[in-house]
């Protein structure tokens, strides 16, 4: 069923090893790697930092800023320090809806909350998430889920029991997103703090202005 099972096992072992040496709440960083079905990386990897109940993700697509995910409420913002601005991430990056702090057995609810916070429909008709039974051959360090969310291909996700985040997501088309090169280490608190003078911004502003121009041709 799985491709790259050995890779997954390595990831999990690394995660377990890292977690074993960690404090009760793990602090770590890792790379988020995107691969096609043949295992070839398809885009520059992203970086993940986790600590203090928050996850920070830095991507090449938004190199001047970073996403912050609040583990408690599964909501995400996008922060750009050089411009002292912050905005709701909404659906600007799929990663903010996947790499939420799931809790050991609470993953489906947390992911569903992330979908709702991103403005996606996550009701009964659009959302499916179930924990799968562990196979005898499967490593006990992960819990496997099958997820169907609005506008996304069905996926299977393996959540580390110790890190409380997915370590691999495999979509039905065979592409994968995996957490690799996990580095168990203390994270600077400032990575997860939004300074109080940052402005909260709303894209509805630009939309309203454009409606006054010829660009908007609704009728």
């Amino acid at each position: 069923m799985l491709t790259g099972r050995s890779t997954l096992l390595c990831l999990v072992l690394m995660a377990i090893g890292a977690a074993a040496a960690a404090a009760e709440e793990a602090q770590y960083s890792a790379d988020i790697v995107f691969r096609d079905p043949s295992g070839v990386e398809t885009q520059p990897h992203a970086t993940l930092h986790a600590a203090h109940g928050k996850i920070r993700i830095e991507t090449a697509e938004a190199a001047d800023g970073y996403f912050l995910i609040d583990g408690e409420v599964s909501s995400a913002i996008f922060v750009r320090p050089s411009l002292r601005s912050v905005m709701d991430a909404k659906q600007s990056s799929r990663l903010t809806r996947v790499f939420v702090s799931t809790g050991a057995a609470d993953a489906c609810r947390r992911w569903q909350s992330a979908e709702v916070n991103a403005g996606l429909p996550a009701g009964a008709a659009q959302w499916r998430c179930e924990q799968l039974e562990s196979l005898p051959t499967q490593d006990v360090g992960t819990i496997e889920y099958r997820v169907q969310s609005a506008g996304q291909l069905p996926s299977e996700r393996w959540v580390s029991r110790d890190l409380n985040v997915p370590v691999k997501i495999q979509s039905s088309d065979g592409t994968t997103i995996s957490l690799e090169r996990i580095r168990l280490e203390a994270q600077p608190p400032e990575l997860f703090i939004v300074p109080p003078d940052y402005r909260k911004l709303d894209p509805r502003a630009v939309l309203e202005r454009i409606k006054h121009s010829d660009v908007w041709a609704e009728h």
Partner: protein
Amino acid sequence: MRNTDRKHSRWGLGAALTSATLSFSLAATVGVAADGSNNDPVRALKTESPIKHVIILIGENRGTDHTFGVYKPKGKGQTISNILSNGIVKEDGSPGANFAKARQFMVTPQPLYYVGAPDKAKTAYAKGGQPQPNTNGAPPAQSMSGAPFPPDFLAELAVLDPSPDFNANTDTILTTGTTMLPPNSLDTRVPGAGMLPNGPFVLQGANLSDDDYTGDMTHRFYQAWQQSDCSLANATKANPTGCLNDLFPFVMATYDLNDAKTPAVQGNFSEGNEMGFYDAEQEQASTLKTLADRFSLSDNFHQSFQGGTGANHFMLGTGDAGFWSDGNGNPIVPPAGQIANPNPVAGTTNKYTADNNFTNCSDFTQPGIAPIVSYLEALPYRPEPNCAEGHYYMVDNTNPGFLPNGFRAPSPATQNMIPPSPVRTIGDALNEKNISWAYFGGSYNDAVVLSNAAVAAGTAATLNSSTALGEAALADPAHSLGVAYCQICNPFQYATSIMGNPAQRAAHIKDTVDLLADIKANTLPAVSFGKPDGLLDGHPSSSKIDLFEAYVQQVLDALEANPKLKADTAVFVTWDEAGGYWDSGFIQPVDFFGDGPRIPLLVLSAYSTGGKVNHSYGDHVSLLKFIERNWKLSPLTDRSRDNLPNPKMRGDQPYVPGNMPALSDLFDMFDFDHAVTQPFLE
């Protein structure tokens, strides 16, 4: 803030860089030879002139008198026809000896739509009785509700749009220009507002300059024809088509005025904004003035289509008008709710019955057709209306049947989008000759991301594309400026041959970022169309003229940094239309669809220097004719306007072609025997 040097000092240019420095840096970055030569295949194409690259930059909604009405040519012996030279205003913008030539009139109610008001039905506005300037749509204060943004909002723009449409040139002036007045109110920033005399007024005062947002006005097809007030009864030797241009405020004040039932209720607040103009001799639109001083300006260039953005851009790309079809090239009747009826509602002065976007001008019996066609047939040169039987032509803004990502709207009729167009474009003609070209639309890349999201969400299949992208923008703040990409400005987005072909789309439909990158990398196509996004296009109300100037300067800066490319490039700077602004110039109707009022055309190249002013009659299609002559292409179709001959201009009537209908191919704006190297701006 309003000092006259603000733009040039703030927008520090790369012009001071030496060519040697530039050659070295380019060689280092793109692998060209140290002497600046390269293997640009565009240069290998045979051309009729030394011009190997053309860049056409298109702003929004500014007319010739509005922009260059108070302008004195820099070139020796050069003349210009504008409201200053004709004595309508003085150099300071105040009324001149011939101010009455610009008088505007009211018309008593008529039973049917008209384009030439009966003389006995017209009455000139008394002083103060003329509709006055209004803040219509202009932002009342700095806010988060759109430009102008408070300074900290610049952070948001940079976050939203990583494209170079927003940069150091534009961010400062995006923060300025608030009206500080209530919406839809008398624009008291205009000196004398409320009691302005009957005629044009200058957009300049203690609280008003070209760096301020001003009120917009309606600019649609049937309204524009009516504003031009064309009748052979008015014809003279200098104005043989008899277009008086004297109903501009009246039509705005009445076409949507339900005065029989609720006289106080007006559907739009254009009011007197049509008569506003900038004073170039007092440093308004100073970048444009500097370019005119150094290069060449046409004072007889026209919007090709009466009315607004979409139809004019379509004409620019095709030399023709789009029509409602089955999506496979066959004309069909659009939904009834799309068909225009400009006849007045009974009991009103001039309220249009159905102000819609499509019209069948081959059918005399349909509302609004006979007055225009009858007028055309009465003209001594009898221009063909060029209305094919059974075709309902797009005369007002309608989104293309393709989204920016190429998705084909499945139900254009219910989505208020025009089905994919079979009309041949200049892109098709260039493709056939393997001549490179591209359309560079500001914020296009973001628009593609939003389109992909709209397709995924299913809204692209059910909603109008503006609405669908707007919804996607709210879900994806990082790409939300994709809503500012102008779909109706891209004539190729209508075309099945381009937009319906993924390879064609990828090769030719690009973003401003790609234009700048191509200039830098010596990969500029032979023919380039550049269009800023909706915040920078210069459109009144939603943008400012100096924001478009900043966009132009950004492109010129890039070109300035590549001297070899600059040397064989011609940059044409023009507008889609006059946006409803009044203009005093002669109009030559060439078919049912236009021409309309004058718009500026600046020609920037080493072969068009010296501050010259060209009087040959042209319109958007002249740009097609230039391309076709330079690269030896044939007219696009047997009905496209590029079949019209070059005008034979006469000394006694320098603005009236002796062989109407005729359109210049613009070659006479160049002196290809003499190249002069000079900076665009300093």
